[in-house]
C-alpha cells in the first residue's frame, strides 16, 4: 500500500461533538496522528472592522462577545487602553471593584475550562459539577452587575454599579463553599487513575517552544515560565494584592489543568483580600460625575449606581494611540487603539489569548493518538469564538 493510502484524513469538523467551532484536519495512520492542522475562522465576526463603525462606548459590549466565558477581563483590557488614550484614571474604589469582578470571572472561566475538558475525556461528572459551581460565581456577578455573563460593567472612568448590600457575606459563603468543593474535584477527577493515565505525559510543551511560539496563559505557566501580566505589568488593584503565580515544570496536559485549579484557589484568596481592603469613594471619575445632571444624585446614592453621562456616548479621545494588556483567564489579551480624534476609532486591534495559542494544535498534536486530540484540546482551554473574533 502506498504512503498516501495508508494515512486517513479525518475531518474533525465543525459537526463533531468535541471540536468546538473549528475544524481539525487530522492525518491519521492507524491510531497515530501524523499531523494536525487547525482550520479556524468559522465564527469570525469581524469585531475589528465593526469597531471602526461604532462609538467608543458601544464597543464595550462588542469587545465582550468574543471571549464569552471570560468577559470582564477583556472589558477591562479595552477600558484600560481607552483610559490611557484619554489620559484619565479611574478612582481607587472603581479600580478595586474592577479587580473583584475580574477575579470572579477568572474563577468561573476556569471552571468552564475544567468542565469542557472533563466532558471531552468522558467524565460527565466533572462537567456537571464544574458548570454547577460556575453558577455560584455567575449568580454573585448578577447581584453585582445585573447580568449573568456579559456585564459591560467597566466604563472609561470607573464602573457602573457599587456593591449591593449584603454582598460581602454572600461572597464569603460562596468562597467557603468553593473551597470545600475543590477537594471533591480532586477525588473524582484530578486524582482519578483514568484521568491521570489520559493526561500525564500527553502533549508536553517544552519551555523553549512555549516562549518561541508566543504561548500565553496557564499553558505558558505550566511549562515553567512564570509570566503573569498581573505581576509583570500590574494594573488596577493588583499591586496591593498578595498572590502567587502558579507554575509547573512538566508542561503536559495534567500540568495545565493543575495550573488552572491553582489559579482558582489563588483567586479565592484574592477576592477575600479585595473585600477586606477595598477603599471607599466614588466609582466614577470626577469629570464624568460632574457631567451627570444633579437631579440624579439622590437616585444614584440610593441605588448605588451611576447614570451614564450623555457625554460618554460621543466620547472623542485625543489623536494618538494606546496599547494595554491584561491577564485574562485564558492568557494575556492585548488591546491596541489608534484614534484620529473622531468618536469612532481609526483602527482597533484585539489580540485574544486563544489566537496566540492556536499554534499549539499543530505543534503538540503530533505522533500522539487519536484519543489524545480531545485530551490536549481541552487542556489548552482554547475558545474558538475568542480566536476568530
Amino acid at each position, binding site marked *: 500500500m502506498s504512503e498516501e493510502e495508508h494515512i486517513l484524513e*479525518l475531518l474533525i469538523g465543525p459537526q463533531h461533538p*468535541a471540536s468546538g467551532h473549528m475544524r481539525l484536519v487530522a492525518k491519521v495512520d492507524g491510531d497515530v496522528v501524523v499531523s494536525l492542522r487547525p482550520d479556524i475562522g468559522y465564527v469570525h465576526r469581524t469585531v475589528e472592522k465593526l469597531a471602526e463603525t461604532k462609538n467608543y462606548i458601544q464597543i464595550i459590549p462588542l469587545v465582550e462577545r468574543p471571549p464569552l466565558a471570560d468577559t470582564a477581563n477583556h472589558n477591562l483590557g479595552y477600558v484600560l487602553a481607552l483610559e490611557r488614550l484619554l489620559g484619565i484614571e479611574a478612582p481607587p474604589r472603581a479600580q478595586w471593584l474592577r479587580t473583584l469582578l475580574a477575579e470572579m470571572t477568572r474563577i468561573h472561566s476556569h471552571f468552564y475550562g475544567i468542565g469542557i475538558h*472533563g466532558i471531552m*475525556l*468522558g467524565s460527565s461528572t466533572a462537567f456537571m459539577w464544574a458548570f454547577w459551581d460556575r453558577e455560584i460565581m455567575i449568580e454573585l456577578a448578577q447581584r453585582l452587575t445585573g447580568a449573568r455573563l456579559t456585564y459591560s460593567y467597566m466604563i472609561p472612568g470607573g464602573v457602573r454599579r457599587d456593591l449591593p448590600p449584603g454582598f460581602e457575606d454572600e461572597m464569603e459563603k460562596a468562597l467557603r463553599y468553593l473551597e470545600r468543593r475543590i477537594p471533591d474535584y480532586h477525588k473524582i477527577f484530578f486524582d*482519578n487513575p*483514568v484521568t491521570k493515565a*489520559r493526561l500525564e505525559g500527553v502533549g508536553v510543551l517544552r519551555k523553549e517552544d512555549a516562549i518561541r511560539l508566543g504561548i500565553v496563559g496557564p499553558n505558558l505557566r505550566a511549562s515553567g515560565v512564570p509570566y503573569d501580566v498581573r505581576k509583570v505589568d500590574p494594573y488596577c488593584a493588583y499591586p496591593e494584592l498578595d498572590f502567587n503565580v502558579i507554575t509547573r515544570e512538566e508542561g503536559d496536559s495534567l500540568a495545565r489543568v493543575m495550573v488552572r485549579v491553582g489559579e482558582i484557589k489563588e483567586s479565592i484568596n484574592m477576592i477575600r483580600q479585595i473585600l477586606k481592603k477595598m477603599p471607599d469613594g466614588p466609582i466614577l471619575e470626577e469629570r464624568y460625575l460632574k457631567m451627570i445632571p444633579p437631579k440624579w444624585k439622590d437616585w444614584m446614592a440610593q441605588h448605588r449606581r451611576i447614570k451614564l453621562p450623555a457625554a460618554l456616548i460621543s466620547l472623542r479621545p485625543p489623536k494618538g494611540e494606546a496599547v494595554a494588556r491584561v491577564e485574562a483567564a485564558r492568557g494575556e489579551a492585548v488591546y491596541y487603539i489608534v484614534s484620529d480624534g473622531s468618536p469612532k476609532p481609526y483602527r482597533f486591534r484585539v489580540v485574544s489569548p486563544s489566537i496566540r495559542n492556536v499554534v499549539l494544535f499543530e505543534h503538540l498534536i503530533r505522533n500522539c493518538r487519536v484519543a489524545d486530540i480531545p485530551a490536549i484540546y481541552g487542556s489548552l482551554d482554547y475558545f474558538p469564538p475568542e480566536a476568530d473574533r
Partner: protein
Amino acid sequence: MMGLLEWILNLLLSPWLFVPLIYPGLISAFAVLLFIIWLERKLAAKVQLRYGPLYVLKQLGGVIQLVADLLRYLSAEPIVPDQADRLAFIFGPILLFASSYMATVAIPISYNFYAFRSEISLLVVLALTAMAPVFNLVIGWGSNNKFGLIGGLREGFLITADEIPLFVSALAMAILYGTMDLVRMVELQSRWLWGIVLNPLAAITFFVLMLLSTSRFPFEIVEAESEIVMGPFTEYSGILYGLTMGASYVKLYVLSLLFAILFLGGWEPLPPLEFPGSWLILPAAVLFLKALVMMGLSVFMRSVYPRYRIDQALRLAWHYLFPASILSVFLSFVVLMGWFI
C-alpha cells in the same frame, strides 16, 4: 374454546418457549433494557446534582422515560446513506441485537426450569455471547464513514482482548466446580460457598472484563463520543439507532446473569438455605435481582470514570487481566486441593 386458551398458556409456560422468549429471553431483555438505561441516567444524575429523567411519570421518577424514547425512535425515519452497504447497514444492528441475547437460551432460572441443559452449557453461553461483537465490525465497515471504520476497528481489537480472558475466568470457575453445567454449579454453591468467596480473583477479572466487553465506562472506547462521534453507529437514526444503543446493554444483561450464576449463587439465597426444587417464581426473582445488582454496579461507573484510550485498555487486558485470569485458574486448583485436604 377454553381448551385452546389452556393449550396456548401451557405452550407459553413450557420451559423451552418461556426461557428464550419471556424470561430471561427477548421480552425481559427488552424490559431490562428500558429499565437499566433509566437507572443509568438516574444514578448518574444523582451523582451529578441533577434530576435525570423526571417528567414522563413524575410520581415514579420518570421510570418509563425509555418507553417514550423507544416510541420516538420508532417514529423517526431510519435513513440509509446512499453509499453505504445496504445489507450490512440494515441487518447489522438487527443481528447485533439478536445475537446479544441469544445466549439466554442456555441460562437456567430454577432447578427444573430451563430450555436447554447439557454438560457444557457454560461453553454454550460464552460462545453465543462472543458472536455478537463481530457485527460491530460489519456495521462500522458498512456505514461507509471514516469514524465508523475507526470505531469498528477498535471493536475488532477489543474482541480478542476481552473475550479470551473472559473465557479463561469463567472456565476457572468450571474447574472449581468440576462441571460446566450451570444448574449443577448453583447446586454446589448452595452447599459450599458462593463463587465470589471461593475464587475472588476470577470474580474481579470477570467483572472488569464484563465492563470492557460491553462498553461501560471506563471502557467506552468503541463509541467514544468526543473522539469518533459515535464510532460504528455514527450514521444511524431511527429504530436502527435504538437497536445499536440497546445491544450493548443486552449483552451486559446476559453477562450479569452469567455472573450471578457463576459467582453469586444463582437462584439460591445465601447458603445453607435452599429453595425447594419445584419452586419457580421465587428462584427466578432472586436470580433477576442479583443480575440487576451487577448491572446497576456496571452502569454506575459512568459517573465515576472518564474513558481510557484504546491502547491503554488493550494494555490493561493483555498485561494485567489475561495473567490474572490464568492465575485464577491456578487459584481454583489451590482451592480444590485445599477442600479435599
